């Protein structure tokens, strides 16, 4: 009985949180499933692809051990960590999708005839997905948000990306990747207010098998929520580190 009470209590809270999500509609509203436009906030609390990453390769384990995050079981004070974010280095596409796509810093999708744009509020970063039928190039310079092409499979928008700069982390837990990583994203607008995202990350240098994400769910933000300018300003970050973060971590530079 107590277990049942406990389950009901947690289910009630979970349902309440879902219902309280901005933009959540009480009744279905007509929508175009091939129009992904809007400012989206994620509802999933998991800030990584999934809780069950595939095993590392020896190189993947070595790189993971070298990354010192400030979250999770390996957390160290940022002053003694090496999270690229602490210097305003670009987060990279996967971390943009995973970390900052939360209610505080949402993501906006804008579609044009030949491209889909995603604007990530934190870091004032964007990526473009080419939808003009071009294939991914055979070779290209590496970039933090990679090179992406998209196509429709029914009402699912499928994005394939590669050519990622390997200096970024996949998430704030310090998951590494290599420049050989490829990513497939599958977006579906389930109703006007709900966008689903499933991802498959393939990086044989780092993981022994593809890493399939949990189902990520995003909710349409209210119309009043517009993407703001949220640069990570290196000089501000450096001042913050000098006055706050480093002394708090017991570090004098």
């Amino acid at each position: 009985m107590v277990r049942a009470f406990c389950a009901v209590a947690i289910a009630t809270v979970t349902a309440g949180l879902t219902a309280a999500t901005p933009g959540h509609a009480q009744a279905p509203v007509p929508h175009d499933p091939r129009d992904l436009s809007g400012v989206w906030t994620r509802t999933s609390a998991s800030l990584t692809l999934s809780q069950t990453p595939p095993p590392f390769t020896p190189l993947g384990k070595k790189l993971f051990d070298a990354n010192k995050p400030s979250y999770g079981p390996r957390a160290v004070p940022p002053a003694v960590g090496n999270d690229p974010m602490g210097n305003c280095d670009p987060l990279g596409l996967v971390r943009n999708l995973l970390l900052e796509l939360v209610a505080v810093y949402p993501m906006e999708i804008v579609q044009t005839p030949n491209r889909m744009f995603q604007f990530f509020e934190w870091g004032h970063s964007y990526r473009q997905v080419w939808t003009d039928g071009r294939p991914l190039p055979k070779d290209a310079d590496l970039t933090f948000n990679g090179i992406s092409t998209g196509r429709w499979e029914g009402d699912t928008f499928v994005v394939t990306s590669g050519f990622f700069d390997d200096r970024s982390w996949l998430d704030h837990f310090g998951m590494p990747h290599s420049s050989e990583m490829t990513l497939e994203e599958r977006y579906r607008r389930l109703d006007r207010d709900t966008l689903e995202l499933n991802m498959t990350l393939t990086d044989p240098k780092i993981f022994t098998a593809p890493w399939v994400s949990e189902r990520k769910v995003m909710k349409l933000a209210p119309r009043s929520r517009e993407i703001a300018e949220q640069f990570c300003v290196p000089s501000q970050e450096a001042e913050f580190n000098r006055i706050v973060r480093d002394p708090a971590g017991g570090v004098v530079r």
Partner: protein
Amino acid sequence: MRGVIQRCLIATVALVASTSVFAHHGTNASYDPTKAVTLTGVVTRFTFRNPHSFVEFDVKNEQGEMVHWVGEMNSPTVLREAGWTATTIKAGDELTMTLNPSRAGTPRGVVNRMRPILVNGKQVLGTGGSNEN
């Protein structure tokens, strides 16, 4: 059974809490959430900008020496949602706030907005919010 209900309540509260502690700057790895210190001093600067806002203030310790404390707060985006602005605290204000202090023992702390914040003797805004973001 009481223990089970207690654990259930803790789990439920933790579930609620977990929705508000999304963070992107690892703040709580530096501070000790099990300790709290309430300080009163005079503000020298309030910096309301990314990545995190912070307030600097001078506090006289038990030996009568002036100690320069810095309280880390949330990003402006989060604080604005709670009604804060860049002028909620100003240089010269007398400030009382509760901090979870640095694990390193330095005069740094993360501001606990669940506890009252007094500016010139008056409570500013309501209490609430997490330390992160």
